[in-house]
């Protein structure tokens, strides 16, 4: 099965040179994890390091390969979809078993879904199973999901994820699952490794799960050492003390450069599934309420230079909200505003702003603005003055805010960077009481942007959602609903049918500057050159050996020296 998986990866990759190294068993994989876990309960974990630990221990139903395609893991092939696109049938591999020798069956899948869908589940991570009407066991190895309506993201969002053993978690009250003893001491595993020992604050010790259904992992043992400082972990990698540093990018441009210079380290740099943007409050009466104002902003910012200066190369300039790593990315579907200060000034005039003697733009607000600070009475004057909220401790975002604040002065915008702690940063945004904020968004394998762009997800107007901008566009809403409801018989057909709709969506989002996109994160990981079986994606660019998605990849790594 491992051979089959690697074959798929190589086929998808196309241009990767076949490895001359033959996988061999043995050795210990020592790797750096950037923080200790607070829990090892798959329903409770919420941080990236915790998910990284979990990727050694539990199988996925489906996972994302290095090119972000959905591939079966515990499932036997991609799901079959009924002709009305509401019934998804998933078959499981018949040979799959837990580390205690019992088979992994439909009951485990159903129990996992039930716990995730339970509204009382005490977890920091959010699961959304609201589109699912029923989950049934067709036979021991077949699960049938019946949805209330056709829902395209179901495959990449709901079916990609862990399956937990029903006999361990099925009888725990989801409301009390966080503090159940099993959260600290998991006993049954279905992934490539078993957990032998967890020494809090120090390390996690794993040993090979020889009955892993995709084939025994090559390493006999693995040890995750807690090294909280990314620079220290980079030194450990260079000195051969650890063989994998998944958060090498955190050690900055200097750390990456040093690792690349080292002959015994292999570094892969890849565009991640997350982006950073400049999100404006576009509600009526706020400074960025007019399209022309946002076009003016876009016209005076030299995005490529700003991203380079702010991230030192750890960011790829972005115009739409689909990142280049996604299958739906289309650079030709995006509206880009060229750098043109005069055009920016014209846009400001069109939006009703005139630059005052102090260099700050001013306009008369016929209706006033009650939600603004300070409150503007009807017919009152409004100055283009605002704050750019940034989370403290994020130097790249703060640098971007500083450059932007400096550049937009040319068109009369007076914006001040305002770094605050996350606890202070977030509440005003949820209430819609802000001018601009710079934030990061993590994406999943589906490019659907319903939660950040649909007017059904406006915050605080609705109780949920992440469309904090106040942006509302019926044409965009309709396109988003359409792409979500487009489900064909196969994943490839579904993608082909959704892609032109995403092109239209991106045109609107980038043209209307629904949010001023800054960059897609570029992450780096480092491996010791002794680790074999590490495969990069398209053009050595797309690689997603992260979070919960690469259980199979962990099993494929091997020690070239056998140590």
């Amino acid at each position, binding site marked *: 099965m491992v051979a089959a998986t690697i074959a798929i990866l190589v086929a998808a990759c196309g241009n990767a040179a076949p490895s001359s190294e033959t996988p061999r068993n043995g050795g210990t994989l020592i790797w750096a994890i950037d923080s200790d876990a607070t829990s090892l309960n798959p329903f409770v974990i919420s941080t990236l390091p915790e998910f990284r630990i979990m990727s050694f221990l539990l199988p996925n139903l489906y996972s994302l390969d290095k090119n972000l395609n959905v591939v079966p893991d515990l499932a036997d092939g991609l799901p079959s979809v009924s002709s009305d696109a509401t019934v998804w049938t998933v078959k499981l591999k018949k040979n799959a078993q837990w580390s205690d020798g019992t088979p992994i069956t439909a009951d485990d899948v159903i129990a996992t879904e039930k716990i995730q869908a339970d509204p009382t589940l005490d977890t920091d991570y959010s699961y959304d199973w609201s589109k699912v009407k029923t989950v049934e066991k067709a036979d021991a190895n077949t699960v049938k999901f019946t949805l209330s309506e056709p829902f395209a993201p179901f495959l990449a969002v709901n079916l990609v994820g862990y399956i937990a053993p029903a006999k361990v978690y099925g009888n725990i009250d989801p409301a009390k699952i966080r503090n159940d003893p099993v959260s600290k001491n998991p006993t049954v595993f279905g992934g490539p490794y078993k957990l032998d020992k967890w020494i809090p604050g120090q390390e996690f010790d794993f040993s090979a799960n020889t009955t892993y259904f995709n084939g025994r992992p090559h390493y006999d043992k693995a040890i995750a050492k807690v090294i909280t400082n990314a620079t220290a972990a980079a030194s450990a990698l260079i000195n051969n003390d650890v063989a994998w540093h998944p958060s090498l990018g955190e050690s900055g*441009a200097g750390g990456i450069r040093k690792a690349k210079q080292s002959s015994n380290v292999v570094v892969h740099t890849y565009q991640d599934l997350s982006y950073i943007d400049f999100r404006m409050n576009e509600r009526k009466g706020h400074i960025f309420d007019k399209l022309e104002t946002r076009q003016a902003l876009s016209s005076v910012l030299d995005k490529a230079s700003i991203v380079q*200066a702010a991230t030192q190369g750890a960011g790829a300039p972005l115009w739409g909200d689909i990142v280049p790593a996604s299958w739906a990315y289309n650079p030709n579907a995006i509206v880009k505003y060229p750098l043109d200060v005069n055009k920016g000034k014209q846009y400001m005039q069109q939006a009703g702003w005139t630059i005052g003697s102090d260099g700050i733009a001013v306009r008369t607000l016929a209706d006033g603005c009650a939600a603004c600070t300070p409150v503007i009475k009807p017919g009152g004057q409004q100055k283009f003055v605002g704050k750019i909220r940034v989370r403290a*401790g994020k130097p790249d975002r703060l640098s971007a805010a500083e450059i932007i604040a400096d550049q937009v002065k040319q068109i009369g915008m007076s914006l*001040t960077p305002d770094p605050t702690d996350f606890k202070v940063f977030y509440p005003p945004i949820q209430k819609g009481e802000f001018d601009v904020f710079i934030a990061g968004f993590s994406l999943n394998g589906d490019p659907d942007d319903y939660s950040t762009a649909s007017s059904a997800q406006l915050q605080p107007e609705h109780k949920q959602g992440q469309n904090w901008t106040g942006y509302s566009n019926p044409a965009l809403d309709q396109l988003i609903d359409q792409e979500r409801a487009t489900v064909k018989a196969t994943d490839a057909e579904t993608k082909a049918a959704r892609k032109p709709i995403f092109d239209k969506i991106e045109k609107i989002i980038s043209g209307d500057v629904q949010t001023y996109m800054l960059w897609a994160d570029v992450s780096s990981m480092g491996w010791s050159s002794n680790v074999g079986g590490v495969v990069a994606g398209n053009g050595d660019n797309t690689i997603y050996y992260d979070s919960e998605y690469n259980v199979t990849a962990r099993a494929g790594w091997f020690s070239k020296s056998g140590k």
Partner: protein
Amino acid sequence: MAQVPPIPIGPAGVPGAVPDQLSVETTVQQERDLAQPGGAKADEFGGAPELGFWRLAVIRFLHHRVATGALIILGIIVLSAIVVPIITGDLYRIQDYRHPFKPPFQSFQHLLGTDDLGRDELARLLRGARVSIMVGVLAVVGYLLIGGTLGALAGYYGGWLDNALMRFTDIIISAPFLLVVIAVTAATGGVRLSTVIIVIAATGWYEIGRLMRAQFLVLREQEFVQAARALGASNARIIVRHILPNALAPIIVSATLGVSGIILLEAALGFLGYSIPPPEPSWGNMLQQFEQYLLDDQAYLVVFPATALLITALCINLIGDGIRDALDPRQR
């Protein structure tokens, strides 16, 4: 500690030293002389030069070579922090973000190089010095006002007031400083320099408060205070005119050392993102922003503010030591 050469002084030059004879006819002038040892006249035993307590302290301080050197260096730093930004104006915020990281000591235009956004490092360093020193001085003034007042009241009146104020001090001591900063920032809707100063002053005065109380507890029992009381001086007059001047010496030392503590605290706050917001630089936020370059060719961006911080704090501590030695009556 530098050796302080012996200086001849009269008995009146010692703080708290009081002539043994007090007559009912003591005049207001005499009362003042009693209260302010520095203002005492030449003693009747003759011979010794006429040197007041404070003048003597200055002379002793100037003989303390290390402290004097520190004072000169600090003076240069403070002076350039005041003068240079006036001359260079907006230079500290002028960006050249397409050509960042000019290395230091390569050109006169950017003597200490430029930062990640191409801003002049020297201009930012001096501008940042303003923030650091201003926070240090203003917060210490806050310490003195709050701690001084409460300590004096507690020490002078004693009883339930002392008890209440000291329990209040205990509460302040146990207040988690960082949480208070976060809470106040949240409540006031963002980080401002005034907030930082107020929070530091409001949570850090207890040391000076306790010191002041201890001084007052001792001094209020002294004969010269009893004498003033017997002469019908009001409580306010006794506190301000009689006890306070005698209690000042240890307070000055503590306040001086407090300044360097606060400068470091401000840097720590800046490092956590809780100090003055950009583009205004402070040594703390400069350290925070460039920590990521520590292992890199751009390490100078960390080294300069860190060195400036170190030198300033060291100078202030040395000056504090010098003042302590100069004001200590036992060191002759």
